[in-house]
């Protein structure tokens, strides 16, 4: 599976929650994107503003039509410019990057997928891949408020799904950890979301086989610049690069 740089075509773009956009991109490169948890590195427009690429997780991939879906929050200059693109626009994509989630589990094994905010998207592709393998999936999706919720029904078609919101305006009030009790002891837990959420899960799921996907500001996205490192417990100078060793790690492998 080789990393390439290619111009993909934006075929569709919708605002699916407050400031959250779903974009569908099409092109040959998509046939490389077989691993959920991997990400693409997007140069939103030509020229030097914004200068750097933006890392965005694969949310869904349709190999047959060579289309991928991403979901992202329009917050800063780059993602706002991305949100302003019209269908037909060409988007410069580098990818697929990073080590994704390992979806290989026994048929009938159980997996709990936990996403927080814009950590939810990669869980969707993962859930589909697990389901394909006969794994029983459940989902906890955490958001700020009802306005930010997306893909609830999509997840519900794959397996039991609990939505939590911090303000209680939709689903269960509270954090994803407040919903853990509904799901007993799954064979594996996968999570992606803000650092405080992942830290809480590391504690709450210490007896589980937990995989987490991390975020960090990136330069190159390919392991060369050392912008995105995190520490490991091995030594004072030991580290992992989120862009190439991750973004998915086994809990404990790196220091959160």
């Amino acid at each position, binding site marked *: 599976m080789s990393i390439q740089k290619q111009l993909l075509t934006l075929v569709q773009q919708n605002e699916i929650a407050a400031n959250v956009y779903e974009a569908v991109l099409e092109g040959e490169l998509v046939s490389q994107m077989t691993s959920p948890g991997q990400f693409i590195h997007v140069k939103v427009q030509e020229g030097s*503003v914004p200068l750097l690429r933006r890392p965005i997780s694969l949310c869904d991939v349709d190999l047959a039509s060579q289309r991928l879906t991403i979901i992202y929050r329009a917050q800063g200059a780059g993602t706002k410019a991305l949100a302003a693109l019209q269908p037909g626009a060409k988007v410069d994509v580098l990818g697929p990057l990073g080590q994704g989630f390992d979806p290989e589990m026994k048929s009938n094994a159980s997996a709990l997928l936990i996403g927080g905010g814009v950590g939810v998207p990669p869980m969707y592709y993962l859930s589909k891949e697990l389901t394909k393998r006969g794994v029983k999936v459940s989902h906890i999706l955490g958001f700020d408020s009802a306005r930010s919720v997306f893909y609830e029904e999509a997840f519900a078609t794959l397996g039991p799904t609990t939505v939590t919101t911090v303000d209680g305006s939709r689903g269960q009030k509270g954090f994803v950890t407040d919903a853990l009790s509904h799901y007993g002891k799954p064979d594996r837990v996968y999570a992606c979301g803000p650092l405080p959420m992942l830290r809480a899960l590391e504690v709450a799921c210490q007896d589980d086989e937990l995989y987490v996907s991390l975020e960090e500001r990136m330069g190159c996205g390919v392991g060369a610049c050392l912008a995105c490192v995190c520490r490991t417990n091995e030594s004072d100078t030991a580290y992992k690069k989120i862009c190439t060793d991750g973004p998915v790690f086994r809990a404990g492998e790196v220091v959160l």
Partner: protein
Amino acid sequence: MDISVSLPGLELKNPIMPASGCFGFGKEYSRFYSLSELGAIMIKATTPEARFGNETPRVAETASGMLNAIGLQNPGLDKVFNEELPWLSQYDVPIIANIAGKTEEDYVEVAKKLSTSPHVDALELNISCPNVKEGGIAFGTVPELAASLTSAVVKASNVPVYVKLSPNTADVVAVAKAVENAGAAGLTLINTLLGMRLDEKSGRPVLANHTGGLSGPAIKPVALRMVYEVSQAVSIPVIGMGGIETVQDVIDFISAGASAVAIGTANFVNPFVCPELIAALPEALTQVGAERIEDIQGRSWKSLAEARHHRT
């Protein structure tokens, strides 16, 4: 067209090389193209001991630029010597080893060992890293300190020593002349400008290190000016860098007086930028009426000098 360049210790197939810290030790970009295509490689700064560097976040974006505060993270002298350099030897490409440290002794230690590696063709003395207290930036802004460090490293080294100049100084020419007199074989410039970005909501610095080094197209005018000034004032070659993205940028730096150029930030934007620039260079030279690099090297000030000469 022949786009090769001969510099002390370095026979370059072409004048394009990745800049230190923006290319690791080459492995990552070797997945995109053969490193043998490059003019040379400036590898990541090496210090005597392994270093973790600064906490994250380590990068932030700015208008046409980026800030970094990596903090000289590297696996340390022994590992670079025993693992990274031998790995690189599979490619037919000159290696310029960037060296850093806290004290003169550190620099000398790294220089001594790395310069005995059969895989190292030249050293790049980094006296300009803005991101660590001991990153040499004091050496880089005071001509006398720069000169004495250069002398010590030149004495310790088996290969030619290039000195990397800091732009965070009032008089880059003074530093350039001082290190030339101290035995530098060449100069590389510029390193990053010290800058910062604040988080919009909290008002706190985005970088864990608070400040960082500004690179990318935003700094090109400053870099070009310094190459222009320095290349006129010294008689050793200059490798220019700072914001190079396009083949026009390469032409500009050579016109300003550089003998070769290095590409930093642009690798992050386009991993293929170096081979693309190498491929585009012959045609670009033809366009400006040049048959080889030297035809336009320094033409910015050579033409002015001629104009002055004709007037008198």
